[in-house]
């Protein structure tokens, strides 16, 4: 998955497990960038009575590098506080939740979260988090989408959890709460030795029982929810200076999200957690920039270490995973004869992948993408650090392609990432060699331009299979699936 349960240790700590990160120019709010970081993978909509929530003991951050040095210049931080409004009740709610109000003993909603969002700017003298500016506190998160009796008119209820916050020169629109999963991929196919259903006949195991050549893909993340941290921020509050245009490196920001826990946690006897406390500095346990980096590139023995280290480590101990990734080496073996040019390149003396390094680590310099020669999201320094790089001077596309740059839509991934971008297919085609010819002498195999997961009908299929409920406005990810109507085996009389 993009980054769901992608490393052994963090998979046991879902509240701190980042799943997806998005950064894009807001199509309906000119002059702003939307940043979205999702946590808590694969939430079953009916997973009560203790429905999903952020953790009080986790520091969630969305970080921005606007100087290209690989270190954060700005960090937006989220801290949560959870209360039991009616501790004697075993239910999530004792009646319908029809409006968002501050925690109260008279509330129908028993288990409620509020949060603080702050901004930290990091010039040299801001060591140790001095200078943290609180943009908003006591902000209300919405409940999970329980069902039509508990959370009627959920869309309006969740909309009331969109807050406008600000302090001094800084402002933002913010939302923190449950959303429908927007990422789509065929996990069953990926993890069954790359057995892509539409191409199974070409697989090395083709012809065996159970292989379904020509079948459409299965969206493994359909009908599940995630927890979303979303910000919409004016562009000029994210860039280091006003860019002169899309070719100016000042227009490019690098974005990544981190979750941190304090070094020490002491548990009190009695088990209710009330006396537990954390102590010591915050230490990073989860990281996410580009989709699929930790999932597909980093070795299993290094995955949790990758999560714990900063993006600049990608130019050091992790560089080999980007320079000579394993997946492109495996593809010709999994699909014999389908990728002959890639196989030949792999066996050559100079088989590094500068295209993968550019996409994931530095951004793409001007002139590299020959069909879109003016495009760039290069960081301006060449410092290698895995981040989602967005050229903020490129406006939203009027006719977007879910294949992003591969579909010659320069407003899409890997120029930032929009909620509907088919990042799994883009990454698959890239590792298969579709982007290698832009940076070295190489002719991509025909299969590299067509291989996919079978979840869309093409680049223009924005509401991909199983993700039909994207929103056209902030926070863009759809209304979460309700527990009453999902899994879909239950009668679906109430959408979504």
């Amino acid at each position, binding site marked *: 998955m993009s980054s769901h349960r992608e490393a052994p*240790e963090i998979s046991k700590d879902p509240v701190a497990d980042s799943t997806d990160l998005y950064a894009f120019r807001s199509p309906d709010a000119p002059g702003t960038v939307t940043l979205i970081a999702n946590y808590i993978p694969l939430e079953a909509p009916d997973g009560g009575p203790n429905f999903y929530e952020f953790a009080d003991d986790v520091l969630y951050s969305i970080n921005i590098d606007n100087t290209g040095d690989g*270190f954060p210049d700005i*960090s937006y931080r989220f801290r949560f506080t959870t209360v039991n409004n009616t501790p004697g009740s075993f239910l999530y709610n004792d009646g319908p939740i029809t409006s968002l109000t501050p925690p109260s003993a008279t509330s129908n909603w028993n288990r409620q979260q509020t949060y603080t969002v702050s901004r930290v700017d990091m010039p*040299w003298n801001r060591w140790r988090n001095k200078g943290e500016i609180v943009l908003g506190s006591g902000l209300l998160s919405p409940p999970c989408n329980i069902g039509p009796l508990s959370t009627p008119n959920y869309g309006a209820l969740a909309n009331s959890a969109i807050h406008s916050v600000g302090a001094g020169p800084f402002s933002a629109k913010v939302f923190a709460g449950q959303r429908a999963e927007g990422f789509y991929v065929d996990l069953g196919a990926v993890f069954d030795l790359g057995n892509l259903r539409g191409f199974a006949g070409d697989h090395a195991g083709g012809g065996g029982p159970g292989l379904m050549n020509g079948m459409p893909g299965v969206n493994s993340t359909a009908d599940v929810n995630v927890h979303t941290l979303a910000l919409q921020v004016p562009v000029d509050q994210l860039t280091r200076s006003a860019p002169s245009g899309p070719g100016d490196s000042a227009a490019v920001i690098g974005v990544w999200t981190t979750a941190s826990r304090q*070094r020490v946690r002491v548990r009190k006897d009695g088990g209710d957690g009330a006396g537990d406390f954390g102590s*010591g*500095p*915050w230490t*990073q346990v989860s990281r996410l920039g580009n989709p699929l980096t930790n999932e597909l590139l980093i070795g299993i023995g290094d995955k949790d270490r990758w999560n*714990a280290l900063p993006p600049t480590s990608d130019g050091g101990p992790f560089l080999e995973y980007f320079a000579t990734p394993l997946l492109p080496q495996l593809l010709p073996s999994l699909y014999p004869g389908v990728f002959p040019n890639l196989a030949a390149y792999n066996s050559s003396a100079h088989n590094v992948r500068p295209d993968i390094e550019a996409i994931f680590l530095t951004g793409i310099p001007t002139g590299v993408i020959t069909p879109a020669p003016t495009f760039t999201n290069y960081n301006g320094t060449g410092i290698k650090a895995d981040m989602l790089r967005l050229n903020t001077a490129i406006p939203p596309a009027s006719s977007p392609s879910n294949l992003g740059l591969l579909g010659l839509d320069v407003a899409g991934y890997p120029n930032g990432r929009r909620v509907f971008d088919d990042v799994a297919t883009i990454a698959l085609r890239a590792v298969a060699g579709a982007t290698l010819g832009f940076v070295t002498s190489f002719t991509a195999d025909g299969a590299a331009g067509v291989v996919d997961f079978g979840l869309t009908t093409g680049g223009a299929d924005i509401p991909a299979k199983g993700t039909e409920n994207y929103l056209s406005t902030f926070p863009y990810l759809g209304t979460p699936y309700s527990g009453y109507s999902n899994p879909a085996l239950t009668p679906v009389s109430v959408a979504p």
Partner: protein
Amino acid sequence: MSPEQNDETAPPPDGWRGALTRRSFLQRGAFTTAAVAVASSVPGISTFVATTATDAPAVDTEVSDAADEAGPLTEPLIAHVKDAGTGEISLFQGEREVVVRSPSLARSLMSAARK
């Protein structure tokens, strides 16, 4: 921002390769060190620190400015004896970590923990 200008994503004092994951933290704690929760409840510790001039804890230079940012005295303090031989002790309080080196303090804590 340069590496030494820290927040939770910047390098720890002992460098990235030495950074502790939660798992390695627990492993190190289990096999090579002792972690002792210390508050005013450990007899003699505060007196020991204050009066043993010849073995005054050497405060790690990279965190030496933490003293003026220390949390309230009522906030719990956790001591992690990383290496009893060298006396390297991490003190956690609030969101701070201070590293001191004092073999005798380490011995005293280890002794107190066995009582």
